[in-house]
């Protein structure tokens, strides 16, 4: 693994702004992005990712690679929480294990777009349909997490919250961020199919503005992540280790699946990043409502305070070199 790609990754504006945010907390600057401004950028990014992804999927059509890749993505988001759960059960109760595991089975959209920016800066091609994989990996992990709670939880759970399948599906697909991503994807698809002039008119908003808005949001994420980090001390070294080891482990499985699927290096990196990233939006929101027994500080501080920064700063170039090592340069 060379040092160069890591440095190059760190020197991109989004990562630099993330670091600036984190450093401001370290130095006790009073820099603050007051609520609900971060929510504005978070909603914007989901809308733009979905919309552009929908267009790309419509454009590329359902090629040979699409279906196997999307199926594999769903499979990974079902499998990862199960593995995570088994590991976490060594130290945590059912509730916390299920909630944390679900977060790692799901994805982080901002990690995904950071990987896309990385690929662009490296001039490595990737396909638009990978956004479909992103969209499809959010819900299954939530479902697995909630099913784990339903079946593994102690029988004396308060009646009021005995989860019905309908409630599980509701939390999995109608959670605000999942819903916005999925429905924007559909809007993008429909626009590309029936109203191509709409694409050009949306482009300045969803396209040109995207990189800058990403930087602004990452500035805030840096602040939030650095504020979260100290809380990990209470979580113990097992969880801290998990927050670094689990992404690497998932990336490792992911890269072999990508090889099996014969993905090109760009798509392979995105696939690996989806496996390695953990959710701090949809899953925590869903878990907080449905599994209040789990400590939110566990599943948020790990994903946001450790796994997210690790992926953004070091993970992506590491996974890239992993991809380059494991996957033989395919002619695609």
């Amino acid at each position, binding site marked *: 693994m060379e040092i160069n790609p890591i440095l190059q990754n760190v020197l991109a504006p989004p990562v630099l702004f993330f670091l600036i945010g984190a450093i401001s907390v370290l130095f006790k600057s009073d820099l603050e992005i007051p*609520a*609900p401004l*971060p*929510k504005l*950028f*978070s909603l914007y990014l989901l809308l733009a990712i979905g919309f552009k992804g929908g267009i790309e999927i419509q454009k590329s059509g359902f090629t040979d690679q699409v279906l196997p890749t999307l199926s594999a993505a769903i499979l990974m988001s079902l499998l990862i929480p199960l593995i995570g759960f088994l590991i976490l059960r060594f130290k945590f109760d059912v509730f916390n294990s299920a909630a944390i595991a679900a977060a790692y089975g799901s994805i982080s959209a901002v990690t995904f777009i950071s990987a896309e920016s990385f690929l662009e800066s490296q001039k490595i091609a990737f396909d638009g349909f990978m956004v479909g994989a992103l969209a499809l990996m959010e819900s299954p992990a939530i479902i697995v997490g909630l099913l784990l709670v339903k079946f593994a939880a102690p029988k004396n759970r*308060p009646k*009021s*919250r005995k989860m019905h399948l309908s409630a599980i599906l509701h939390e999995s697909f109608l*959670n*605000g*961020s999942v819903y916005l991503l999925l429905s924007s994807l559909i809007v993008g698809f429909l626009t590309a199919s029936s109203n191509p002039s709409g694409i050009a008119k949306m482009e300045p908003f969803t396209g040109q503005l995207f990189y800058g808005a990403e930087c602004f949001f990452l500035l*805030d994420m840096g*602040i*939030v992540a650095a*504020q979260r980090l100290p809380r990990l001390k209470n979580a113990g070294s097992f969880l801290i280790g998990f927050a670094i080891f689990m992404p690497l482990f998932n990336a490792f499985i992911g890269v072999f699946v990508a090889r099996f699927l014969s993905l090109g290096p760009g798509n392979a990196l995105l696939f690996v990043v989806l496996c390695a990233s953990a959710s*701090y*939006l*949809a899953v*925590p*929101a869903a878990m*907080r*409502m449905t599994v*209040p027994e789990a*400590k*939110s*500080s566990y599943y*948020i501080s790990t994903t*946001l305070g450790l796994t997210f920064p690790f992926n953004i700063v070091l993970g992506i170039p590491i996974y890239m070199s992993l991809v380059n090592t494991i996957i033989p340069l395919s002619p695609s």
Partner: protein
Amino acid sequence: MKRLDLIFSERELDAIIKTLEKANVPGYTVMKHATGRGPERVVTEDMEFTGLGANAHVIVFCEQELIDKMRDNIRDDLSYYGGVAYISEATPL
């Protein structure tokens, strides 16, 4: 006249308002975006974008009887997800 202060996760707001409406309270006021710490959980505003949300602070001025009528339902609403409820004296101006 009494003043009832309820503080709880914003996502429980609909349930609480339904309870209040069913009891026919004369009115209520909702302040969102409150943050805080309870005996078990932490909510910080800087996390609001995650959809975890913050707390809502609801104030109800009403008669004691109404509060007695709602007590069980509100306790139920709050028992599972946490939140606090306090009563104090208040006189209309």
